[in-house]
């Protein structure tokens, strides 16, 4: 499912949560949506899911515009603040299953085992992480063409997070679909996502494939003079001086003829994210 957001704006009082955001989430791709707290990630995801009906702009699913206030049929939204019925998880799965003809029972069983989820205990007796597991299992089992996760791993321990990532990829292999994951665990999602979108203060700061990021984001370390010369005309997102040496973080095309005194290294997605959205701190 292709999801197009056209000029989406949303205000909360005088605060602009989203400011003319235009972005296309292509069919059958996994997206990582990154941004600082208050960047507008949840608002954007909730607008796409039909959870927030008051906004400006358009959301289009496979060329069909989302009717204001309606919820798109093939989009499943998972958030960390979930309210479930106080029933055992098995009953909740049964209820959800009735509404989804493409429900994958085999996947549900696999996921229950992988998460080691006790499906007989009522929700009230489950931890927050386990409650999120229930929603995650429903989302991945229901056969929706698009799944949106808003901070899905916030309540998980590292082991469960790994299992979640494995399950996500397993579900994607079984049925490729559009998946958007909003998270603060930047480097963890970089293993899953094909494209990374960074939101900053309600605007799209970056929308690139992981491949593009890997070729464009790097550091140069060397004598300050050589670095100054090498970075001329490049998009420098951070620079630090250590004695006679300078470390510059670049987000631009790679230079071919670089002085042998300069060492070039790729940077992690997390470092890139910090330098991009925290750029104003250094300027």
């Amino acid at each position: 499912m292709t999801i197009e957001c056209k000029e989406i704006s949303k205000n909360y009082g005088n605060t602009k949560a989203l400011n003319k955001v235009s972005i296309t989430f292509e069919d059958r791709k996994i997206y990582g949506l990154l941004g600082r707290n208050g960047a507008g990630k949840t608002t954007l995801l909730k607008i796409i899911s039909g959870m927030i009906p008051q906004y400006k702009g358009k959301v289009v699913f496979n060329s069909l515009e989302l009717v204001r206030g309606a919820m798109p049929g093939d989009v499943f939204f998972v958030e960390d603040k979930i309210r479930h019925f106080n029933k055992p998880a098995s009953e909740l799965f049964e209820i959800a299953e009735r509404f989804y003809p493409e429900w994958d029972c085999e996947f549900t069983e696999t996921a229950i085992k992988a998460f080691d989820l006790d499906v007989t205990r009522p929700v009230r007796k489950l931890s927050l992480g386990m409650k999120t597991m229930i929603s995650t299992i429903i989302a991945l089992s229901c056969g929706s063409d698009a799944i949106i996760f808003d901070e899905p791993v916030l309540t998980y321990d590292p082991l469960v997070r790994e299992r979640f990532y494995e399950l996500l990829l397993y579900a994607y292999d079984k049925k490729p679909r559009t998946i958007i994951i909003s998270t603060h665990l930047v480097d963890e999602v970089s293993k899953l996502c094909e494209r990374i979108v960074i939101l900053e203060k309600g605007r799209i700061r970056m929308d690139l494939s992981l491949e593009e990021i890997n070729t464009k984001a790097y550091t140069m370390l060397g004598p300050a003079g050589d670095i100054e010369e090498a970075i001329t005309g490049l998009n420098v997102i951070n620079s630090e001086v250590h004695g006679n040496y300078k470390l510059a973080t670049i987000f631009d095309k790679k230079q071919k003829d670089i002085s042998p005194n300069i060492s070039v290294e790729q940077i992690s997605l997390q470092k890139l994210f910090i330098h991009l959205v925290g750029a104003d701190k250094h300027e």
Partner: protein
Amino acid sequence: MNKSLTMAKTNFKLAKTPLVLTLLFVGANLINQIIMLNIDGVDSGMVSTGNIFILYAILIALFIPLSYFRRLISLGIKKKIFFRGTTLTYIITAVILAIINIIIYYIETAIVGDRPFLYMNILNVFNWFQHGVIGCFLYQFTFYILLMNFINLLAISNDGLGGWIISAVAVTIISVSTPIKPLRNAFAAFLQALLFNPNLFLQILYTIILTTIMAYATRYFIRRKSL
């Protein structure tokens, strides 16, 4: 339609608390009736057990929008399915309640016979048997649908300005029209048209119009609801 029916079935399965509460009141009323039948109290009254079942209609119209709506959305159910399924839930409930009330009316009137105490049943109060059993069913059905939709509308809209305005208007109409005679008469005429209308067709027509307006308003509020 399939998903709406599934939604309706789900609502009924979930609505155990309204059912248990209603059955408790029904049980208490039955005990009261047994005592009444045995003591033959001349100055006492007996409320029909069938009427107590109407409590279920009131309770599910409160529980579904206030307690189940958000939780159903968390399970991936869409607003449209919720609205359609809930409407179907109310229709089915209205049919069942109307039938229950008629059956219990016949049982109770046979048991009470010509005993001296007062037997109270809304079917008598509103004179809903004036057009026979089918008429009684239709009078009740439309009234229960209207009642559930009204409560549902107030409950679903309670978290927004529009909902508060509706509630305020409803309260104002009742409180202002009660002490002022011309308004009281107008309000009484309105209620008569909806509840005591000797013309079955007109009563059904008025109720359907009002219910449709309320259903559209409910749909509007559901659509505008931020989650």
